[in-house]
């Protein structure tokens, strides 16, 4: 059931943008792991209790990155994996693909690398599709094994943006040895960029109702 304030056309446009971004991100992950990876069809949902619980799960590792597109307010990307899945993806990384940091390759260092790769290619895919520039604040990447201080992240974003939406999709390898969640937390600024792009593509549809 649709729980967003968006029209079906707006949801469709946002889903395609998510598909391109998360698909590009997962394609690069495939190259790191040297195995085919897939994504589920992306979903768009309000940042509700269910999503908050996933982002604060005590048995999860989270990589968090900030992204800023077309000089709008920053949005957040989270890569969420259970500790078991994070260890599985660590085992899936070819030994020569990553150099251990400080001599020890851990699930957290692998997740950090996965976050860097996926956020970078997500951002690149979006920039090419939407024909916008921006920057990715990779130094902000953090990997946490405790419940993420989500409220701190939200407070660091502009407060006047109103309700936040999450674009999310699962990614996994074909052998299903691991599964993770890619979550892109957006505000009105980003929606407006999408609707302007939809307007350009469809000649008016999608941009009539500013969020």
């Amino acid at each position, binding site marked *: 059931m649709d729980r967003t304030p968006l029209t079906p*056309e707006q949801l*469709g*446009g946002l*889903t*395609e943008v998510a*598909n*391109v*971004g*998360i*698909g*590009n991100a*997962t*394609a*690069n992950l*495939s*190259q790191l792991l*040297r*195995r*085919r*990876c*897939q*994504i589920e*069809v992306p979903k768009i949902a309000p940042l509700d209790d269910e999503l908050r619980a996933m982002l604060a799960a005590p048995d999860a590792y989270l990589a968090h990155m900030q992204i800023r597109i077309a000089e709008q307010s920053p949005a957040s990307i989270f890569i969420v994996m259970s500790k078991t899945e994070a260890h599985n993806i660590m085992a899936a990384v070819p030994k020569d693909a990553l150099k251990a940091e400080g001599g020890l390759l851990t699930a957290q260092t692998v997740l950090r690398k996965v976050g860097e790769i996926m956020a970078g290619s997500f951002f690149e*895919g979006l920039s*090419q*599709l939407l024909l916008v520039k921006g920057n990715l604040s990779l130094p902000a990447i953090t990997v946490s094994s405790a419940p993420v201080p989500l409220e701190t992240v939200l407070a660091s974003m502009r407060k006047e943006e109103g309700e936040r939406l999450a674009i999310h999709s699962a990614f996994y390898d074909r052998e299903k040895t691991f599964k993770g969640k890619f979550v892109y937390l957006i505000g009105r600024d980003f929606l407006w960029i999408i609707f302007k792009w*939809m307007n350009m*593509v*469809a000649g008016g549809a*999608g941009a009539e109702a500013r969020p």
Partner: protein
Amino acid sequence: MSGRVLVVDDSGIARTMIKKALADGGFEVAAEAQDGLEAVDLAGRVKPDVITMDYSMPNLDGEEALKRILAVDPAARVVMLTSLAEPMLREDLLKLGAKAVLAKPFKDEDLVKAVRAAI
């Protein structure tokens, strides 16, 4: 017109972009499908010169639809479009019989070139 194309993508806005690019390139869009199941059905009925097929779709994905279409008509010409275009997937899809694999997002001229080459 230089060919009839079946456009397959679950996204309405993606279909709009593809149709515009094809029309600008001189192609006729013979039909459009929103998932792999519909694509398999329409491929048999419409007999397009080329099919542009999204990879990630609900109900039946593009890879499975490609297999089913080629099983019925081994001469079918399918150009795959995917945001997951890494080398292993490209190789697998080409081995299955796709004429080309284009990475999303793509330039209009690259789509037209791939469809033209497939005919």
